[in-house]
């Protein structure tokens, strides 16, 4: 089989949508793509880049606006059915029939693909044992965990060996351990059957496992290369620096992001990993504070971030995020260093001080299902506290109990010194809450939304007007004052939701999955805002399924299946696990495996 043979050949592919009442949206803009037979090809890009649209066009489930599209030798426009006969596709929300068993789901797909009975038994057993599903064949698909559902979805697409396997974000929201297992299976199958795979993902470690990587942003293909080739673009530009004693990693990271010479900065393993073209990483901020950076290995993610920044700036003139930070950037630039220098001063350690949230032996049951099991923790004034875990771990349930939105089955809960069981309303006056889907009124403008939320918090008119101006300034919403919420880009919606939650100057801010569905650049800006708020003394509790975001937190806890797995400072946890350089995904896997071993012993 010749490796230069293409299974997908795409030229000038364009797809435009015409949503009702809104202007035309170009989801894909003259995209070229080529997926070679027998290879793993990754499509990476932030949420909303157009990955799913591209996948659907390839499957023939959508018709392109313009361009040519040849898949497994057929023109998709003319012969969609011929293409659909030959490929297997796993959509993001894989359509398992939840009221059918594992076996029945697989049988259905085998029947549809016409897999002969004789072949079936052997192949099913092989797939099931690889996925670790052999014991669950009689279980309803709806009763499987998130990771197991994804594996079953993959098994259903692989009931026969397809000419092309399309996977649309197969691991989104799945825990790191299941993610790793899924990829092991995938790579094994690619090896055994010389599968051609086209997979979209938001995780760079997954893209690094592929032979070819395409980078898509806002409907445009930014780059295409091997993972190593892409990574080389960031080679020699990456450095790591440890924060001075007593300074939170996120404070240094935020300050570095503000430095015009720095392209990108993220907290990694207690240090700040940053990208700059300044020799030896001697950026102004670090020299002023007497910090020296060590050169670091470039990662695929660094190359990706460089590409995104460059794209955002329209051909890179310095550092990125112009569009995201709005017009404030220009004014900021002059005094960033001063502000940054000031920010680098150690934050007075909140620990041991006032306890803002106290949770003791919290339990929540829904019928015989335990969503949260015996959880205890404390959050101190001015702390950034992270609740981490995969989808279905119990994060949102814990959260809703803390906000007084859901009564606890048992246990003690006090927020801002108020017992939630006795005085829910009183406690609510001290908290701001940003829900997962940003509960905004889409038809109302930015200003009207803020007025409404200020009204329900009962702010007096004059004070409200002043606060609205203040939060609009703080979140750079002033220029979008009269725009309806529905027309705001994702990052702005999130800011508006935060602005609304902060109108009444709450002591504690709750954020439920604020960064899901938001592109990496907007996530950086978001964490800078969080850093600023925390420095002002606001206590922040945040849930996320991005394990690496734990690095921004002062302390965190990881939940899985309702159980509290670990609680503490990221650095302490790393030390405890004897994995000083591990990232949070590795930590999670180590912790789960350890708790399973302990479970097996007892």
């Amino acid at each position, binding site marked *: 089989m010749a490796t230069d043979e293409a299974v997908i050949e795409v030229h000038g592919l364009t797809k435009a949508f015409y949503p009702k009442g809104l202007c035309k949206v170009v989801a894909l803009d003259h995209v070229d793509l080529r997926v070679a037979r027998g290879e793993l090809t990754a499509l990476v890009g932030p949420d909303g880049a157009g990955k799913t649209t591209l996948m659907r066009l390839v499957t023939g489930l959508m018709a392109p606006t313009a361009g040519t599209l040849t898949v497994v030798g057929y023109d998709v426009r003319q012969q969609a*059915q011929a293409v659909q006969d030959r490929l297997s596709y796993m959509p993001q929300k894989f359509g398992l029939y939840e009221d059918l068993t594992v076996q029945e789901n697989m049988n259905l797909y085998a029947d549809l693909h016409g897999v002969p009975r004789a072949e079936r038994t052997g192949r099913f057993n092989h797939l099931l044992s690889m996925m670790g599903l052999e014991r669950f064949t009689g279980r309803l698909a709806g009763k499987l965990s998130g990771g197991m559902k994804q594996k079953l979805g993959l098994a259903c697409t692989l009931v026969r060996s397809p000419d092309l396997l*399309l996977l649309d974000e197969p691991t989104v929201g799945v825990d790191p351990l299941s993610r790793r297992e899924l990829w092991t299976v995938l790579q094994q199958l690619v090896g055994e059957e010389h599968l051609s795979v086209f997979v979209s993902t938001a995780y760079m470690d997954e893209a690094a496992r592929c032979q070819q990587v395409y980078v898509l942003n806002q409907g445009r293909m930014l780059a295409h290369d091997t993972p190593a080739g892409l990574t080389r673009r960031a080679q020699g530009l990456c450095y790591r620096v440890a924060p001075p004693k007593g300074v939170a990693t996120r404070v240094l990271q935020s300050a570095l992001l503000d430095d015009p010479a720095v392209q990108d900065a993220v907290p990694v393993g207690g240090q700040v990993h940053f990208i700059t073209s300044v020799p030896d990483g001697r950026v102004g901020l670090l020299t002023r504070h007497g910090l020296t950076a060590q050169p670091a290995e470039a990662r695929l993610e660094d190359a990706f971030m460089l590409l995104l920044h460059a794209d955002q700036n329209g051909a890179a003139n310095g550092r990125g995020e112009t569009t995201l930070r709005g017009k404030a950037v220009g004014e900021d630039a002059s005094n960033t260093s001063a502000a940054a220098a000031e920010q680098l001063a150690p934050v007075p350690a909140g620990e041991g001080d006032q306890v803002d949230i106290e949770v003791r032996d919290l339990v929540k049951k829904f019928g015989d299902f335990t969503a949260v099991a015996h959880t205890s923790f404390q959050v101190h004034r001015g702390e950034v506290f992270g609740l981490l875990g995969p989808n279905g771990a119990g994060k949102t349930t814990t959260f809703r109990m803390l906000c007084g939105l859901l009564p606890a089955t048992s246990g003690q809960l006090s927020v801002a010194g108020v017992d939630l069981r006795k005085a829910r309303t009183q406690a609510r006056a001290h908290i701001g809450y940003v829900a997962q889907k940003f509960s905004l009124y889409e038809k109302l403008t930015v200003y009207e939304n803020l007025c409404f939320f200020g009204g329900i918090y009962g702010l007096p008119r004059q004070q409200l007007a002043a606060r609205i101006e203040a939060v609009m300034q703080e979140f750079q919403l002033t220029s979008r004052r009269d725009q309806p919420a529905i027309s705001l880009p994702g990052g702005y919606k999130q800011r508006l939701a935060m602005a609304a939650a902060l109108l009444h100057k709450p002591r504690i801010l709750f954020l439920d999955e604020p960064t899901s569905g938001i592109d990496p650049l907007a996530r950086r800006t978001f964490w800078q805002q969080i850093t600023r708020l925390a420095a002002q003394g606001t206590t922040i509790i945040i849930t996320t399924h991005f394990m690496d975001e734990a690095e921004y937190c002062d302390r965190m806890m990881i939940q899985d299946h309702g159980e509290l797995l670990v609680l503490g400072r990221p650095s302490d946890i790393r030390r405890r696990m004897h994995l000083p350089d591990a990232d949070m995904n590795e930590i999670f896997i180590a912790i789960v495996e350890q708790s399973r071993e302990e479970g097996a012993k007892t």
Partner: protein
Amino acid sequence: MNGFPAFLRRLRALTRKEFAQLLRDNSSILMGVVLPLALIFIIGYGMSLDVDRVPTAVVLAEDSPTTRSAASFTVGSRYFSPVYVHSLPEAEVLMRQHAVNVIVHFPPDFSAKLARGEGTVQVLLNGEEATTAMSAQAYVQAAVLTWAASQGAARAGLGQASVVPRVWFNDANTSSWFFVPGILMLVLTISGVFLTAMVMAREWERGTFESLFVTPVRIFEVILAKVIPYFTVAIVGMGLCLVAGRLCYDLPMRGSLWLILGESMLYLIIALSMGLVISALTKNQYLACQVALLVSFLPTVMLSGFLFDLHSQPQAIQVISHFLPTTYYLELMKSLFLAGNYWPLIAEDTAILLGYAGFFIWLAFYLTRKKVA
């Protein structure tokens, strides 16, 4: 390529899946089987419009053999449950207490006036119960006239003519007979439009179609596999209604049973296609449910002649109702059950129903595509 066996194999796999889902989901069984039976018993027993043992006060102000004879129709009648009093005020008290709904008043000079040929009987009715009142009045009238006729004939030996109302096609004027065809129509509409629209919309909503479409499966097979189980459910529901109607209400079937079944299947196909059209347009369970309610269920109940006789409705409503396939199906069913095989009507309505079936099937296939929005 041997396309035919592949088609059957995929159809069998999909149909098996639909049946498995149907059997595990109680709500479909509830809607398809339990609801029809509940309807037939509730409507059949509870919503009767018939006069049955109406509490009646019979005022015999003059206790004479003539009056007693004239009032004898109330004795042992299944229509009346009489109380005998001797003055009108006594009866009025009973009426005010709601102890009786009808007063039949034989005045003190009844026999004397009767002898002169001027005998009158006063009937007082409780207008709050309008339907019962109307029926009761008709019964009393008929009974008294019959008695008067026999009296007149006996005395004068002359033939006296009197109008005796007779209700055609529904001899006993049993309203449950009138309702059963309507319930059949309801059952078919509910299982057809509602269940189909909901299960299709569910697949759109849960994204299961997206993975299903990227297989060798053809859209025709997907649709057919959806239709088969719900067709079965509806037929079972209809069968139960027929059996229940026969056993509990002695429902007559003057027309051919095969015609009844055949026409019902034709109507069911229309209902199923309407369900498919609704789901293809909405792709959302909640919306599908609302639309199905608005365009199928409510018009079926209100406008087809099920509850309200079409002939007594305003012109505009009549026009609207003639756009509904249910109107023709109901007309056909009533005729087949209660009147017999009247071929001109059967031919006309069948042609109209076939037209609707063709239109909705075409629309369903036109709208359901292997595409995602």
